[in-house]
């Protein structure tokens, strides 16, 4: 199975521009699954734009366009889901023009530059989906920093974990995230696809470093600090 790690640099609030970029990659990539970063339709972090009802509405319309573009393949893409009055930091799981599942981010970071509990409700389900005979777990950023979600996904039969992130740079971060993925590997012995946003938003720098992690080590990784698309055979 070929998986494309689409490490893109979205612009916050440019919903149609970000969606066009995502659709153009989907149309041109030769892969079974294309994976895009956390909140890649809106860009991370939209902050108080999330308080505007039209914002989530427009991001859902953009998601519908992306869904239509996914012929004979699967796509994992980050978006904001509104359910009644609640917002969820979400990953849409799309297979062949159908949304087959939505993962709600379970671990919402609320320290340092993060304030996700201001806008989002926590999810409570360790999502997995099945594609081409393979069970795959989906998680969002902080979910992979703690053991529980991956452990539940393994228990439910996942043989691969896809994590979409918008993780900011600070010195030592590359080693830190690789260590986190190594811990999840040690606990579960399941390969991990990690796709991180790249680019800067108001002085916060997202470093990329998207990677395929297996056998306790990085098998292949995207370039740091720039847009990059990498296809791995899983």
């Amino acid at each position, binding site marked *: 199975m070929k998986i494309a790690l689409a490490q893109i640099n979205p612009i916050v609030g440019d919903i149609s521009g970000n969606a066009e970029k995502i659709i153009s990659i989907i149309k041109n990539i030769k892969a079974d699954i294309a994976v895009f970063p956390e909140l890649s339709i809106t860009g991370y972090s939209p902050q108080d734009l999330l308080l505007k009802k039209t914002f989530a509405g427009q991001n859902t319309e953009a998601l519908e366009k992306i869904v239509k573009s996914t012929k004979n393949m699967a796509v994992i893409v980050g978006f904001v889901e509104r359910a009644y009055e609640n917002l969820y930091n979400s990953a849409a799981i799309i297979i062949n023009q159908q949304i087959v599942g939505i993962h709600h981010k379970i671990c919402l970071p609320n320290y340092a530059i993060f304030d996700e509990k201001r806008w989002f409700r926590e999810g409570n389900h360790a999502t997995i989906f099945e594609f081409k005979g393979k069970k795959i777990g989906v998680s969002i950023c902080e979910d992979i920093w703690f053991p529980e979600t991956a452990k539940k996904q393994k228990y439910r039969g996942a043989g691969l974990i896809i994590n979409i992130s918008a993780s900011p740079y600070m010195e030592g971060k590359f080693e830190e995230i690789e260590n986190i993925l190594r811990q999840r590997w040690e606990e579960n012995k399941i390969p991990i696809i990690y796709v991180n946003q790249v680019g800067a938003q108001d002085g916060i720098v997202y*470093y990329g470093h998207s990677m395929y992690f297996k056998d306790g080590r990085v098998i292949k990784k995207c370039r740091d600090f720039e847009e990059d698309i990498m296809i791995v055979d899983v």
Partner: protein
Amino acid sequence: MFKMNTKEICNAIVLGIRDYFRKNNFQKAVIGLSGGLDSSVSLSLAVKALGNKNVTAVLMPDIGTTSDESMQHAKELAWKLKANHKIIPINDILNPLSRIEAKNKKNKVYSISNSKARTRMVILYYLANLENALVIGTSDKSEIALGYTTKYGDNAADILVIGDLWKTEVIEMGGFLGVPEKILKKKPTAELIKGATAEKELGASYDVLDKILKMHIEDDLSIDEIVKRGFSKKLVGSVVDRVRLNEHKRRAAMLIRVSEKSFHGMEWRMPVTNRFKG
């Protein structure tokens, strides 16, 4: 003092600069260049991120106070980086202010000193508006922490490119970027008053100040805990006091909130880089 991954941090800062300009539809930058460490490193980073044709370095001497050496170092760096540079002395703009009478002579010296930095800000924003450019600020993390800046003077800018590097880290970054040794080794000075050095005004070397600041700000240690690690109580107390008393310099003007939704910083959290028009 600090062993940091300079190349990686440089790449992060360059991306931070580049995306802030690109995503907000700006190409050009202006930056005040004094010939000192901070502005030299900031200019080098700006040129790396935006290209030499898009960055204008502005030398703004205070004739009578600014040393010839500073001017020479500034010019040499601008030539080395092939960046445009302009020389605009501040005296003609500043002098009318100094004619305003003041009862308290000490306060007047203080006020004139700060006005020098504010005059430079006026010149930079004047040029920025002419060229649709953004102003790059040159304050480093140590100065921001200690409030060793002039409010709405050198601390007024659109983007602070070395604002998260301690002074001692700025020296490392300068070495990595090829800033000449003579600039890296100079004693830091604001050059607002002739002959004054920053370390004399602050009471210790930046090597020592950065160690104390790092423990206080990044590790959240108390005064007593820092003193136990071998620093004088008087110095640690004065550093911690400076950080506390200068909080206002790290903020926009304090807005008094009286409505359900205000622009108070605790409440209004809009991104600056924002393309949402809905």
